């Protein structure tokens, strides 16, 4: 029954295609037809097999598909570490002003002053928020901000003729931390966290030596707790000439309360698509500006937006720069949104954001602490991590709970992240949610805890109201079907499991979804 009505829609755009149908209208050619402007050898031999549909087909198809999604607009989205707050409509309007939306990146600087000014001002505002000396807006997302940050640290050490090969990262870190660090050419060394997700100071001390280039940690940490000994930690590092990088993904917890720079960090990145309300868009685009202290400024990505007198310009003469991260200047559209948001909130508003984010998270943690194990004692900051250990005893896993929530009208928390917590359920409500919504969510969670004991079958059955239920992940990985093959049903022949020069690409199916972190 859940699959009746609109929910049962099961078409792909290709399956609506009808030869000769048109969804567009272009003007007729108004220039002479210069024969073979494109020599035959460069021409496509046979036309690409693309859909042929009407404009109405497009509108109805994508309207229907959209209804198969949960979005922040339609559902509470307590996805930990993702800061799924309300995406203001005003941001969308401002990013669509023709002067911004239709501006070409290679337009003369003199003709782009409005855009350059916005970028310059946003950089200054972000630096103030993080207590940093300079900011680059170029990174396209948090992970790229990490790469940029670590590369700057690398360039810094190199400039001081220091060969350091290791970067320390807590075992509780987000996957992009080790991935970005490895990409920057460092050996990743895991530092243990204690039960509260805090860095084991002794373990850290043990690892700290002159071969360590940096320590990269997330504040508040991925258990939602603030490192109480953070000043000590950054101090220890600096004593060894080790740079400290703060993953700023959780900045929503500390706006106007404390600043990475004041905590002793040398570098930190921002996720504008988290703290600063640019929409997640189903996976992106985001924006991951990176802020640094003065000693790292020479290494910022090129170009840097500079202000000379009352004119703004792109400064390309940056001999020590780590280079470019993407072709142009950054995800400008996201910058306009973040700028609009900061201007809308003001200093008091931003601080109220963090205060309410913290309040909401603690309220949820408190209300659920009887029925679920709490990963680390509170007070937490902007998010809290629960463990479904207890429910697991009844055979109900974190994933089962996540699926059941879908039926009750909520998106799911992040599951199985951080990895140091068994059956982790990571819950981040954000400040834009109301007490009423939090109460509805807590009631649902408590109801599920009861069901786990009394009617676990119900939870295992879930979800029953969604268009599809519990998809076969193993089949998906064993017989990859990554594009539409004319509905022949026949999946493309599976990839040869061992490509030439394989350097670790595993042929085996991925670890089952129950243990795949989602954040």
């Amino acid at each position, binding site marked *: 029954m859940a699959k009746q009505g609109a929910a049962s829609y099961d078409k792909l755009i290709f399956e609506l295609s009808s030869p000769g149908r048109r*969804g567009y209208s272009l003007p007729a050619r108004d*220039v002479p037809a210069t024969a073979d402007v494109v*020599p035959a050898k460069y021409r*496509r031999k046979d*036309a690409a097999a693309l859909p042929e549909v009407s*404009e109405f087909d*497009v509108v109805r198809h994508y309207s229907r598909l959209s*209804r*198969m*999604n949960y*979005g922040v607009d*339609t559902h509470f989205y307590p996805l930990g570490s993702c800061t799924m707050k309300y*995406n203001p409509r*005003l941001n*969308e309007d401002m990013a669509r002003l023709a*002067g*911004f*939306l239709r501006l*070409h990146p290679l*337009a*003369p600087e003199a003709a782009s002053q409005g855009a350059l*000014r916005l970028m310059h001002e946003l950089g200054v505002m972000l630096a103030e*928020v993080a207590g940093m000396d300079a900011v680059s807006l170029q990174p*396209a997302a*948090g992970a*790229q901000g990490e790469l940029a940050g670590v*590369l700057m640290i690398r360039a810094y050490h190199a400039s001081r003729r220091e060969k350091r090969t290791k970067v320390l990262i807590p075992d509780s870190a987000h*996957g992009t931390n080790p*991935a970005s660090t490895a990409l920057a*050419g460092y050996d990743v060394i895991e530092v243990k966290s204690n039960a509260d997700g805090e860095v084991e100071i002794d373990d850290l001390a043990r690892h700290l030596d002159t071969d360590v280039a940096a320590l990269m940690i997330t504040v508040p940490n991925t258990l939602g707790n603030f490192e109480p000994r953070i000043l000590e930690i950054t101090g220890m590092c600096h004593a060894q000439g080790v740079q400290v990088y703060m993953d700023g993904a959780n900045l929503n917890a500390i706006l106007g309360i404390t600043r990475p720079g004041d905590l002793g960090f040398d570098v930190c990145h921002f*996720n504008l698509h988290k703290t600063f309300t640019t929409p997640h*868009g189903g*996976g992106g685009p*985001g924006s991951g500006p990176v802020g640094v202290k003065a000693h790292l400024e020479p290494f910022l990505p090129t170009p840097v937006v500079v202000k000379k007198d009352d004119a703004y310009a792109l400064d*390309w003469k940056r001999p020590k720069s780590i280079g470019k*991260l993407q*072709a*142009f200047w950054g995800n*400008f*559209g996201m910058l306009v949104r973040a700028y609009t948001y900061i*201007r*809308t909130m*003001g*200093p008091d*508003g931003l601080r109220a*954001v963090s205060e309410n984010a913290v309040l909401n998270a603690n*309220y949820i943690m408190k209300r659920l602490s009887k029925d679920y194990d709490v990963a680390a004692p509170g007070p937490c900051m902007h998010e809290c991590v629960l463990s479904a250990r207890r429910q697991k005893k009844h055979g109900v896993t974190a994933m089962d709970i996540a699926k059941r929530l879908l039926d009750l009208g909520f998106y*799911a928390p992040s599951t199985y992240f951080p990895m140091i917590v068994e059956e982790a359920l990571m819950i981040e409500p954000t400040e834009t*949610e*109301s007490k009423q919504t939090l109460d509805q969510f807590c009631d649902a969670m408590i109801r599920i805890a009861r069901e786990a004991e009394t009617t676990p079958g119900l939870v295992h059955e879930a*979800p029953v109201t969604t268009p599809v*239920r519990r*998809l076969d992940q193993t*089949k*998906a*990985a064993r017989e990859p*079907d*990554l*594009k539409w093959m004319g509905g022949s049903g026949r999946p493309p022949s599976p990839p040869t499991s061992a490509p*030439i020069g394989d350097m670790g690409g595993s042929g085996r199916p991925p670890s089952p979804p129950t243990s795949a972190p989602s954040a």
Partner: protein
Amino acid sequence: MRYLSNTGPEQRAMLDVIGAASIEALLTRVPAKARLARPLALPAAAAEMDLVREMRALAAVNADAESYTCFLGGGAYDHFSPTVIDHMILRGEFFTAYTPYQPEASQGTLRTIYEYQTMIAELTGMDVANASLYDGGSSLAEAALMAANVTGRTEIVLAAGVNPLYRHVTATYCQGPGVKLRTVPAPGGAVDLDAAKKLVDLKKTAALVIQTPNFYGCLEDVAAAAEIAHAAGALLIVAADPVNLGVLEAPGRLGADIVVGEGQGLGVPLSYGGPNLGVFAAKKELVRRMPGRLVGATVDLDGDRGFVLTLQTREQHIRRAKATSNICTNVALCALMATIYVATLGKQGLVDVGELSAAKAHYAAERLSAIPGVSLRFPAPFFKEFTLKLPVSPDRVVGKLLKQKILAGVPLKRFDKALGDCLLVAVTEKRTRAEIDQLADALGTAVA
């Protein structure tokens, strides 16, 4: 505070449940020494109507492609984009959703990505395409690193015609892994194949990289490049603009092992250069080494078709330091724009866009090169973009035409000293004959 929910009484009630006296009491773990004792030094909150007024003024200063006639290219193009795209991506269920980690609540996004992968694979002529990377530049960088990993080699040979901005990004990404970059000259606009053959090393070269049409607008001989690369056991990486591939041959059909490109032309707004759309496609043998997300079709509990993120063991959230890439957030919404663009234009539409752009570009080239002192800089055939040699400083010409609300082109000085007298001109299907004639007349006067 129209974006905040809790009222004073609600905060009070919640604190009572928590058992805390105040919000301050929840912040005790933050070291007092590090607490910010003052308000952030930011402009005060602005009311909606005031901010709108201010932002309109800020935007109005820019010479955008709506109020100016745009002949700028170099990696971003003013192609036509049907209005349905924006209407669809503004559906909250699309743009306010997260990465589809919970497939049951994300079939909308997952289906559109699967459609996108299919479209890109078809346009590029490759077996598989991923769910998107950041932009053309980082896509090329990821391709270079992937080639190095797959082949176990340490050098990448790039044609001089590859967009210098992409080469810059690739160099940045290659620092860490220590992969070396070498460049093959392109004196005639297209890459010197003999030079390439010499430069490609049987042991060290992981991949040969070409772009077609290249940064100067010239078309490259992909098949010949493929031969050179494969003969040396290297991969061929081709950078191509997918919006051209309705007319131009799919690189995959010509021997490319990896195809990357900037997909902005597929309905993604210029937006001063970002967010863009990093296209990435490869042969199926390479799928488990690919960066980025992949969506696959599978079945659900009831045997119904459904879609999921798959082959995630390649990714950072599972493989961490050993992941094929560090990418997490990509540009899903831009990929959705491209999906809707390709769906709307469709089979014939992409042919029309390509043919119209090419015809208009060649008409423009004819008109412009007829101006005394102005000539085409390169003999090689081009598609929708070409390099002009001017008798006077391109910057001055651009400045003059700007006053007539014409964005004449991109001076190449910044990218290549040797081309200090050159202007890169791009013409899309959006430019009318009248606009091209205006450009020719204005440029004629400017160089006279």
